[in-house]
């Protein structure tokens, strides 16, 4: 094999790699742009106006006390999320986490629609690594006493 043929082949390979990498970079740029999910508080979401409609968003805040309504049969779940000043109504299908009590921090992933309802596809309770002692009478040991003592449903 002559030297010039070898160089030509090397150059061709180099160009091929460059084209491939260029195409890949373009895909990457577009891919990341269209898959960014912004993390917003209710206030930030409402401030965005129409630009926040129908784009995937992660909404973070606290559950408004007394706003949780769950139908165990249809699994229809509604609650309101607040950042202290503004509130957003959230609707989702599924089961609320067991300790999904009012006031707990949550992150819901989904889209905000024109009717002013946030449709959540994913719901996460904000875990805290710090130790929070349960309120008196609310420790699982006491709350589920009847189940532990076997007086719950038995076959």
């Amino acid at each position, binding site marked *: *094999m002559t030297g010039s043929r*070898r160089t030509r*082949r090397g150059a061709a*390979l180099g160009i091929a*790699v460059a084209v*491939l*990498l260029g195409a*890949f970079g373009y*895909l*990457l740029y577009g*891919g*990341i742009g269209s*898959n*960014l*999910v*912004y*993390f917003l508080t209710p206030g930030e979401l409402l401030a965005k106006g129409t630009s926040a409609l129908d784009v*995937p968003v*992660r909404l973070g805040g606290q559950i408004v006390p007394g706003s949780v309504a769950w139908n*165990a*049969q249809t*699994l229809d779940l509604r609650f309101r999320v607040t950042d202290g000043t503004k509130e957003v109504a959230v609707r989702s299908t*599924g*089961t*609320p*986490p*067991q*300790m999904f009590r009012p006031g707990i921090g949550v992150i819901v992933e989904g889209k905000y629609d024109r009717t002013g309802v946030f449709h959540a596809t994913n719901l996460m*309770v904000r*875990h*805290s*690594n710090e*130790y*929070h002692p*349960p309120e008196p009478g609310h*420790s*699982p*040991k006491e*709350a*589920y006493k*009847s*189940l*532990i*003592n*076997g007086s*719950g*449903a*038995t*076959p």
Partner: protein
Amino acid sequence: MNVLVGLSALQIALGLSVVGIIILVAGARRNSPRLRDAGYAAVYTSFGLVTVSTLTMVVALVTHDFSVSYVAQVGSRSTPLLFTIISLWAALEGSILFWAFLVFGLAALAVRAHRREPGHSFEYAAATMLAIGVFFLILLVGPANPFHLVVPTPSDGPGPNPLLQNHPLMAVHPPLLYLGYVGLSVPFAFAVGAMVSGEVADDRWIRSARRWTIAAWIFLSAAIIAGMWWSYEVLGWGGYWAWDPVENASFMPWLTATAFLHSIMVQERRGMLRVWNLNLVVVTFVLTVLGTFLTRSGILSSVHAFTQGTIGYYFLAFIAIVLVASLALVAGYAPELRQRGTLDDPLSRETAFLVGNLLLSVMTFTVLLGTLFPLVAEAVRGVKVSVGGPFFNQMTLPVIVMLLFLLGVGPALPWRRTDRAKLSRRLLVPAAVMVTVAIAVVAMGTRDVYAVLAFAFGAFALTTNLQEFWTGARARMRGRGERVFTALPRLVRGNHHRYGGYLAHTGLIAAAIGIAASSAFKTEREITLKPGEAVTVAGRVVRLDDVWGRQEQGRTSIGADVSVLSGGRVVAHLEPAQRFYESSDTPIPTPAVHSSAARDVYVNLMAFKEDGSSATIRVLVEPLVVWIWLGGGIVCLGAFVGFWPQRKRYARAPAVAHTTSTVPNAGEIRPVQVEVLS
């Protein structure tokens, strides 16, 4: 007492390691065996001291010595013994200590194995390993000191994160991961040693680096599989991979290490890719440090959490030093490392390795970008964003199916040049299998392009790799009259590297098929049932029998008795539960899984009435999930076969070693007795 012993052992080890580095470098420069041996003694002694410190911590944990800050942070009298011991790696400080223990352990092991090697490259390699150890020791005596004295001594602690004490896999996953990570620093040290000593041009370093990389790769692969399994068994969402930054952190070095394991074969055989391999080994090491940084600095929850602690800056500085110093070294030696061979034919084993390397690098870059983008966006623009899973799937799935295809073509391609006619004869059966599977999958109603391609290419690659075993064994059976079960093991024993590799491929393909099937054909149903009621999901009947509560050590469990029925017969009893640990205000879901070769029935208890009159369960039926775990096991087994030392080294016939049609025929190859360095 524990505080004093633990901390002073670390401080002495730090001083000794710094002295050890100086002695080793001086010994290499002055060509003094006495200095060299003194340096090696410093490695052993430092390892001993770090071991003392680590054992002190374990003793402190087991004896509930809450005067030690780390024990006060993660210990609890109500935690069972196993989880008390493994809380050594439940939080930052302890895991850095365990990490340092492994760094020095592997450095001592490497010295033991390589101390008699000629030349000076290993002395520099040992010094490099000590330098890495010094970094972790600086963390331990500074920002990540686990041995602060707590006054007054608390009587009890909160215990480790409940998520980590809910499943025994947490006893397995972190040590495997750390062994993988730390193990990958050894080949890096070899590369640095080879460059600093100026011995890099003789390519000897890659032989030692290869074995250490395989060993580390086995641990890293096992760790990734164990992590997926843990996620599946514990987190309760029925999946095993979420492109979470923590998962990505372990996946990226795995990708580059995989690329390295393949491209060094090109260097060994053809003297090509010599600079590329040095870069790969450096990048792999940096990615392991980056992984540690991402998972341990708190940067993932928020950039601001990171700036509150100082440990993140230490890591950033370390990464910067390693990157600049080693890439400068590589650049300095690059002119000496002109490639010896050339690419003779675009259709050859070399090309397959080149393309594979390119694909793996592209994938690493994609994952890196998706992982770091949110951090950069928050730091630069002040917005909190996350890069969704769809990005990773969209970008990596094409690469993954291409890699699957390559897995099928690669073994069929010979080195240097390919005879086209022989190649097509060799690929005839696999291609037929591929087309059949593609048609069958489409006929079954799959419309997802990547699922179809994954099954078709998976079947194709599986056939080619199995065909390698079959043709090899058949040649032995014909040539020597051996039976199948004699011929197969002997075939593998004759060429560990080759057949270990094919075995690992087979496992990887099985896992890929499992992943494709379980994500493409997943059926999910969430429903509230009263005891006695049942739901049918993908042909399986799942019946709620009872709701119960139990007081256990350190936790309260509320669970459901669930029966899985198939054809009117009970095939499994499951007990999905929610566990309420005393130290946490949120319950830990504890799903239950009934596995079989064809499908998993996965039941998670989502909610329950306090009087037990009803429970909400989520049922998932996912096909072929077991294949992922089994495939992962086969991957590790194959790599282990490749790692196993070959007692005899076979002289390879020069140049046209074997063409497509002749099978690696052990009969043609004359064994030459060469003692292989361990």
